[in-house]
């Protein structure tokens, strides 16, 4: 690896690879489960709960009355 140009390309490519792999891991670990969970919950609400005719009625809160 005597050509500095080639060495530079190799360094950049490796850095990009490491960043991509880290991003993928973070997405896989933290973001994907959230998105997946959200989509799953939303699907259950829209396809099951809502279709069964369970309408929504506002729930009460108490702490804000303090």
């Amino acid at each position, binding site marked *: 690896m005597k050509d500095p140009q080639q060495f530079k390309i190799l360094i950049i490519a490796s850095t990009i690879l490491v960043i991509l792999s880290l991003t993928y891991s973070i997405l896989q670990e933290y973001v994907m489960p959230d998105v997946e969970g959200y989509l799953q919950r*939303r699907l259950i609400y829209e396809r099951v709960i809502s279709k069964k005719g369970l309408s929504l009625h*506002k*729930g009460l809160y108490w702490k804000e009355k303090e």
Partner: protein
Amino acid sequence: MVKTVQCELCPTECELEDYQVGGCRVRINKGGTLYSLVYGKPCAVAVDPIEKKPFFHFLPGTTAFSIATAGCVLGCKFCQNWQISQANPEDVDFHELPPADVVRQAMFAGCKTITYTYTEPTVFYEYMYDTAQLARQYGVNNAMHSCGYINEKPLRQLAKHLNAADVDLKAFTEDFYSRICGGRLKPVLDSLIVLKQEGVWLELTNLVIPTLNDDLKSVGEMCRWIVKELGPEVPLHFSRFFPYYKLKNLPPTPLETLIDARKAAMNAGLHYVYIGNIRSEAENTSCPKCGRVLVERTGYFVRRNNISNNACRFCGTKIAGVWS
């Protein structure tokens, strides 16, 4: 990003993400607002004798219009109504019965009381609250059978419209509540004190389960707490356990165990201790002073009532309760 919502109704205080349903199965966060899924949608509606709740010192011999929706704040392994209490609201059939219709039907059926029962009424709080408020305006009483697992503020607000409450005091150890019910004992004890302070007529039920909560030492401890904090005149019902749900491996409670528990409760100073879910003389109310039978019952039915002007007809001793 839609914000999470914290439910403030029961001591579990679920923190819900968007479209997430709470542990009770019937409260949901949608778009950052908390909603009830079961308002006006009872899955059980029936006219019962008030004795079935059980209330023995609250309008004996009258009927109660009883409603329940799906869901529960606890997950007791011995639940006798698990088919609806541990079900999702979308998995059970329900009626469309708004508060006004509940009150109308209760009056039409000649019921003096509307009871919120079978499952845990805390989970349908808004429905119960609106119905109770309306019922009061029409002179219909409100009573709930609850596990008492509810936060103080909602309970105090509800208590203003409640005439009576029967609370399940399932055991007297934190270990039992956490292992068998998925909850805590302390909030239940706090609720009992709140109900007493708010002037709601209170009765207690203790389901005696072989090997799990039939230790007489613990029963005695529980009864002494009741006498000290709630008074000796709070009726206590020891109820016979039958193997249901996740505790099918245990036998039904022997009658002797219930009799022993009753004796321990009387020794602790309680005046009115009953045995339920089994026919016996311990279904009757006797005068704590002269010992004569005042209310004779067979199962849920009142055969004779010797209470006149809230007092024993024979010796004139005042008998705690709501008699007319």
